[in-house]
C-alpha cells in the first residue's frame, strides 16, 4: 500500500529527491549550539524554519528545544535582515538572558546575502554576553554540514591560545550523536584519567533530568571558559570526519592544537583506535575497567557470531554513523550490500568501498542519495535487515524486513537518545538490538514444528 517504488532503476534526470535521507543545515547548527552551556540558538530567517527545526528535535529528544528567531517578514527580505537581527539580539538578552547567543542563517537570509558579522559589529551586545554565528545555507550540504559549521564557529569565535605550553588535556569533538553517546565518550576518557574538553556537549541539555521545574538553560553543555581553553589543549580528536573535522582543523590553524580525525567510535575497531590514540598521547596504559569491557564485548560477539554470518544488511543515515555501523556489521560477519547517506561528499563512498573491499565484498554505496533509490536497491537485492533512522520504516514494511533504529531522527520510539551506540558498551547494545531483531523475526516466521525455546 505504502509501496510506490518501482523495482526498475532508471536514471533520474531532475536531481530532485524522493524521500530524502538528509535534511537542511540549520537544524544541525541548532543542535550543536544547544551543546554550549546557557546558550540560546537563534535562527536568522523566517519563523517557519525555526518552528520545524524545533519540532523535529523535540520529537527526537522528547525534551524542550528552545531557539529564537528573527521572524522575517516581507520587508526584511527586501531590505535585509539587519534591523531584525539587532532587535532580536536586544530582545533575546532582555527576555531570556542566555550567556551565549548562537546565530545561524537559513536559506532565505543566505540568499538575500545578509552579512552577519557586519550586523554584529553594529549591534549592542550586553556586557559579558557572547554572540557567535555560523553560515548555514541549506542548499549546500546537509544537517551534518550545519553541525560542522556551528562547531567551527565555536572555535572561530571563542578558542584562544593563552598558555606558553599546551596543557595536558584533549579536546574531543563528538560529532552529531545523541547525548547518551556523548556521555559514554566522556566516561571512557574519564576512565583513562585524562583531562578533556568535549564540545559541543548536549548531554544534560537535551536529556535533562526531571526536577519539576522548567530550566530554560539546564546544567549541561560546554562552558564558555572551556571553549576558550580548547586553544590550550595538547590535542584535538575529531570523531567523525563529516561532522567534526572542520572545527578541529580550524583550531589547529588558529591555536596550533594538533588535530586528529578518527571514526566515530562504533564497534571494537573504532573504539580501540580512539582509546589507543588517547593512550599514545597522554597515559601509559588502558585501565582494566575498559579492557574488561572490551573483553566482554568480544565475548558477546563470539557467542553470537553464528547468527550473523552471511546475513545481508542495508544501512543508511548520517555519514559518520553509517561508516561506523558498516565497520561494526562487517566485524560480525554480516554482508552490507547497500550503504547510503543523504549527505553529499565523495570521501564517504571511498571509505565505505575500501572497507567492503577489505572484506572481499562489493555493494551499492552512495552519498547524496535518497531513500527511493535505497528502496530500489533493496527490491533488486533483498536484505535480511535494515539499519537506519525512523524513515526506514516505510521500506521495512513494504518489503517485510526488520528495521533496527539507529541515528537521527528517530521519531517513533523513545529512550534511544539516552542509550549509547559508541564505545564497547554501545557496541554491546547494537549487537543486542541486531541480534534480537533477527531472532524475533525467526520466531515470528517459524512454523510450529520449528518454533524453539532455546535459540
Amino acid at each position, binding site marked *: 500500500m505504502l509501496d*510506490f517504488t*518501482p523495482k526498475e532503476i532508471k536514471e533520474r*534526470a*531532475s*536531481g*530532485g*529527491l*524522493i*524521500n530524502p535521507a*538528509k*535534511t*537542511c543545515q*540549520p537544524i544541525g547548527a541548532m543542535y550543536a549550539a544547544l551543546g554550549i552551556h546557557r546558550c540560546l540558538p537563534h535562527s536568522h*530567517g*523566517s*519563523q*517557519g*524554519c525555526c*518552528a*520545524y*527545526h524545533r*519540532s523535529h528535535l*523535540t*520529537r527526537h529528544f*522528547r525534551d*524542550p*528545544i*528552545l531557539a*529564537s*528567531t*528573527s*521572524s*522575517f*517578514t*516581507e520587508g526584511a*527580505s527586501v531590505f535585509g535582515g539587519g534591523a*531584525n*537581527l539587532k*532587535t*532580536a539580539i536586544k*530582545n*533575546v538578552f532582555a*527576555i*531570556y538572558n542566555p550567556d551565549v547567543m548562537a546565530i545561524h542563517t537559513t*536559506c*532565505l537570509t543566505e*540568499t*538575500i546575502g545578509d552579512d552577519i558579522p557586519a550586523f554584529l559589529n553594529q549591534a549592542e551586545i550586553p556586557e559579558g554576553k557572547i554572540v557567535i554565528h555560523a553560515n548555514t*545555507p*541549506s*542548499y*549546500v550540504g*546537509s544537517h551534518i554540514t550545519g553541525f560542522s559549521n556551528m562547531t567551527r564557529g565555536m572555535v572561530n569565535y571563542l578558542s584562544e591560545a593563552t598558555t606558553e605550553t599546551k596543557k595536558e588535556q584533549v579536546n574531543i569533538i563528538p560529532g552529531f550523536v545523541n547525548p547518551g553517546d556523548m556521555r559514554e565518550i566522556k566516561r571512557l576518557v574519564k576512565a583513562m584519567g585524562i583531562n578533556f574538553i568535549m564540545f559541543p556537549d548536549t548531554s544534560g541539555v537535551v536529556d535533562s533530568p*526531571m*526536577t519539576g*521545574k*522548567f530550566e*530554560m*538553560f539546564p546544567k549541561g553543555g560546554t562552558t564558555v571558559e572551556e571553549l576558550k581553553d580548547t586553544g590550550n589543549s595538547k590535542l584535538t580528536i575529531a570523531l567523525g570526519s563529516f561532522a567534526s573535522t572542520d572545527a578541529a582543523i580550524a583550531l589547529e590553524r588558529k591555536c596550533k592544537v594538533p588535530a586528529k580525525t578518527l571514526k566515530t567510535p562504533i564497534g571494537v575497531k573504532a573504539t580501540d583506535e580512539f582509546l589507543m590514540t588517547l593512550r599514545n598521547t597522554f597515559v601509559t596504559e588502558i585501565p582494566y575497567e575498559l579492557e574488561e569491557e572490551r573483553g566482554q564485548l568480544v565475548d558477546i560477539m563470539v557467542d553470537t557470531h553464528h547468527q550473523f554470518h552471511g546475513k545481508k544488511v542495508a544501512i543508511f543515515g548520517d555519514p559518520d554513523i553509517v561508516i561506523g555501523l558498516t565497520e561494526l556489521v562487517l566485524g560480525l560477519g554480516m554482508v552490507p550490500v547497500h550503504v547510503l547517506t*543523504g549527505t553529499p561528499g565523495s570521501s564517504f563512498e571511498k571509505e565505505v568501498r575500501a572497507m567492503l573491499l577489505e572484506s572481499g565484498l562489493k555493494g551499492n554505496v552512495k552519498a547524496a542519495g535518497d531513500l527511493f533509490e535505497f528502496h530500489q536497491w533493496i527490491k533488486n537485492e533483498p536484505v535480511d535487515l535494515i539499519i537506519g533512522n525512523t524513515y526506514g520504516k516505510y521500506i521495512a514494511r513494504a518489503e517485510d524486513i526488520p528495521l533496527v533504529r539507529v541515528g537521527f531522527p528517530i521519531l517513533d520510539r523513545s529512550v534511544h537518545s539516552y542509550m549509547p551506540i559508541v564505545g564497547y558498551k554501545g557496541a554491546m547494545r547494537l549487537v543486542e538490538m541486531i541480534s534480537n531483531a533477527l531472532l524475533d523475526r525467526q520466531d515470528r516466521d517459524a512454523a510450529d514444528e520449528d518454533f524453539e525455546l532455546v535459540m
Partner: protein
Amino acid sequence: MDTGLAIRERLDSIAVKGKQKKQIKCDTDSIAGCVSQRACVYCGARVVLNPVTDAIHLVHGPIGCASYTWDIRGSLSSGSELYRNSFSTDLQEEDVIFGGEKKLARAIDDLVGKYKPRLVFVYATCIVGVIGDDLEAVCKAAAQKHNIEVIPVESSGFIGNKAAGYRAACDALFRLINSGETEKKKNDPKINYLGDFNLAAEAWIIKNYLYEMGIEVNVTFTGDSDYMALKKAPEASLNIVQCAGSMHYLARKMKDRFGIPFMNVSFLGIEDTSDSLRKIAAFFNNDEITRRAEALIDKEIRRIEPLIRGYRKKLQGKKAAVYVGGGFKAISLIKQFKELGIDVVMVGTQTGRREEYEVIHDLVNEGTVVLDDANPSELERFMLEKGAHLLVGGVKERPLAYKLGLAFIDHNHDRKHPLSGFVGAVNFAEEVYSTVCSPVWRFIG
C-alpha cells in the same frame, strides 16, 4: 526561569479577564528575538493540502522544508497513500544562483513519469520567492505537456504567517474546483465538510453521523480527499466549516462563485457536536433529517454520558491551560473542559482572530489569562501562576508541560485517538484522565 515579561510590546497580546478590556492584539507579526511557537506560510499551506491523498506534493526549495513535512500530518486515507511520500527539488547552490525553474520542470517530468498522478501541487518555499522563479509559468507548461493539473502554491515562508498559508492553500484548492464543469443538483442533502484533515480518522466519524442523518458528504476538505472528489465540490448544497481558521476563506469563495451557503460547526465536545448536528439538520428543513438527528444525538449521549460522568467525578476541580493553533479550537476546548468539570485558567492561540478572542473572553471565568502568540516563558509563568494541572498543545509544548510536572494532551498532529464527535468526547475525557491521574507524577521532586 522567571523572565517576567521583559518586553513591553508583548503586553497588548495578553489580557486577564475581569481586569482588562476585551480585546487583545492578535494576527500580527511576531517580535524578532522571541521563542515563538508559530510556523510559516508554507507550513500553513502544507498542512491544509497534504491530506489530498493522490496528489504529488512537490516542495520547490532546499531539502529542509520537504524533510520536516514528510508524513508528519497524521491524516488517514482510504485510498491512495501517495501523499505520504516526500518530494523535493532539493535546490543546490547553483540553482539558487541561476534559478530553479529548469530543475523544477525536470522534477515534475520525472515524478509524472513515475507515478502517473492527475494532480501535482508545487509549493513555493522562502527561497523561491527570493530567487524569483516563475512557478506559475513552469506549472502551466508542465500541465499542458502532461495533460494533468499542476497547481502552484504561493507559500513562500516570509510573506506572512501560517494564516497566509491557509489562504494560499485555499487559493490552490479553489483553482482546482473552479476548473471543473460539474453541475449542481439543487437541494440534495449533500454537503462539503471543510476543515477536517482526518487526523486519527476524525472525518470518517463525522461522515458516519451525517450519513445516519440521511446526509451525504460530497467531499471533505481535505481529509481523505482526492482529485476526483475535489472536482465534484460544486455539487454540494451546503458547506460546513469545522476549522474556520483554515477554511473560512474557501467557504466564502465557494459561496461567491457557486452560491453554496456555509455555516461554522464544531464537533469537539458533546455540546458543540450536538448543536452542530442540529444546525445542519435545521438547514435542510426536512422532518426526516431532523428526526434522525435527534435520534442520533439522543442515542449517542445516552451511551456516553455515564462514561463522561465517571471521568468527571475524578477530574472535577482540576485546572487546564490551552495553547493551540486556532481560536476556534480553543473555544471548543473551553466548553469541553466545562463538561468535565475543569476550569480553563489560561488560553492562547497561534493564529486566533479578534472575533474568536471575544468569544473566548466571554466564555472563560474571571481571572483567566488570554494570550496570543505566546512564548514558552509566558506559558510557563501563567500555568504556574494559575495552578494549571494540564496543558493542551502541540509537539513543542509537550516537553515544556512535562518538565513542569504537568499533564499534557496533544491536540495537534501527534494525536493518536480521534477527538471529534461523541466518540472523541469520550476519548478526550479518557486522555485527560489518564494523563492527569497518572502515577508518574508521584515521583517528581
